[in-house]
């Protein structure tokens, strides 16, 4: 894409796109930090994730300000308009990812006090890895303007849903085996649910990014594999 006749317009768009990148990187580091803290009972790391959320919120407010100002000043059109509006929406999803990571981090203390969480959380580890790949991937593919990769990434959320279903069943088994596991497993279940929600926000971001790049909406239906609703007795 060529440059604007007004150079400062390019600068302003660049600042917004840099903020999205920063927020994406921060979201990735928060997700990886919170799950690592959970799996290793690392309270200091958990604290860092909690304080990172304040930075995330500040970035989102800055992005909103810049985007609103740019719309007022430049009245962007076509791909510029899509980029600005898309950024506002992506920032919203990234901010939510930050909240969910913070929520996981906040549980680290409680789970750590309970019995042997490490043994109970193997499958969560695998799920967290999948989520992390998705979070990092979506920001990278958007920066690389790879629409096809974004469409694929959105469909890959299915794998997280499958994983979530199996974590759910596994934790249920632990709780039935030994009621002393119930507290820890319930917290872990919330963590797993948070990871699954993070995956959903990633698909939102991928859909938005796809629209920004192509001007086309992805089809409404995507594969869904969360079967926990059916797994619970009615």
């Amino acid at each position, binding site marked *: *894409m060529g440059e604007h006749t*007004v150079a400062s317009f390019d600068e302003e768009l660049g600042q917004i796109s840099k903020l999205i990148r920063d927020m994406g990187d921060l979201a990735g580091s928060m997700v990886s930090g919170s799950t690592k803290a959970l799996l290793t009972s690392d309270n200091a790391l958990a604290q860092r994730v909690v304080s990172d959320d304040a930075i995330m919120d500040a970035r989102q407010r800055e992005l909103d300000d810049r985007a609103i100002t740019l719309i007022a000043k430049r*009245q962007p*059109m*076509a*791909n510029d*308009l*899509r980029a600005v509006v898309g950024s506002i929406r992506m920032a919203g999803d990234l901010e939510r990812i930050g909240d969910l990571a913070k929520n996981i981090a906040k549980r680290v203390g409680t789970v750590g006090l309970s019995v042997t969480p490490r043994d109970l959380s193997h499958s969560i580890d695998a799920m967290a890895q999948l989520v992390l790949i998705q979070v990092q991937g979506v920001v990278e593919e958007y920066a690389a303007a790879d629409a096809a990769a974004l469409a694929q990434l959105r469909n890959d959320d299915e794998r997280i849903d499958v994983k979530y279903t199996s974590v759910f069943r596994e934790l249920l088994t632990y709780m039935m085996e030994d009621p002393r596991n119930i507290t820890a497993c319930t917290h872990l279940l919330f963590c797993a649910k948070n990871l699954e929600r993070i995956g959903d926000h990633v698909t939102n971001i991928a859909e938005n990014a796809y629209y920004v790049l192509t001007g086309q909406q992805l089809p409404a239906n995507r594969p869904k594999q969360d079967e926990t609703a059916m797994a619970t007795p009615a």
Partner: protein
Amino acid sequence: MNIMTEQSLENAVGDKMNAKSNEVIKMRGDKVGVFYGEKQALFDVNLDVRLNQVTALIGPSGCGKSTFLRCLNRMNDTIDSARVTGKITLDEDDIYDKNIDVVELRARVGMVFQKPNPFPKSIYENVAYGPRIHGLAKRKSDMDQIVESSLKKAAIWNEVKDRLQEPGTGLSGGQQQRLCIARAIAVSPEVILMDEPCSALDPIATARVEELIDELRQNYTIVIVTHSMQQAARVSQRTAMFHLGYLVEEGATDKMFTNPDDKRTQDYITGRFG
């Protein structure tokens, strides 16, 4: 419940498509070319103007949009060196046919210019002039009726009804432009051509004229040339983008300003033209 929703959605989409297929072409340009002497200013333009819709012509200066507009009521005839090729039809009649009465054509296809240009006469006479030369009013009361209804349609009646005998040139710029629109309407045209009608107006006067354009669309077909992208996006249903004498892209306005197909359109509307 879900089935109902899907059904009604399908109906809505169906209605939209029917509406589309019912759209009537009011004017059609077929391979229109314009030469000023040896120099060709417009190349092979195929463009449809749809009934009761606002068609906006956009593009950088010198792209041929005003040239095309002026072909639609043969304003280019007034320039000696100008030569028009191709075919332009109004309700399927060739407007460049030698049997066409140009004066009558310009009554059917009226024009509003960039700079408000009221005659140096009274407000009343400005509007009455056209109907009089076309013999549209037999009695004074008929003429009064035409003047009043034209000024009302141009949304300026309340501002001038008590001073119809004052000179039109004494009005503010925005009022003058609406007076010119009233003058164009007075001869009951079918199509109104507007060449940057708001470029000499302040934002409030511009908003009034834009509001007016939207109302006029119910009864007239409008083609507007504008340098303001936002204005084209606001007032038109169809947008045509010109560049270097060629029609680059034509389509639904909503799509043109969010996701145009052609890179030149994209570059122009986003402010990237080199």
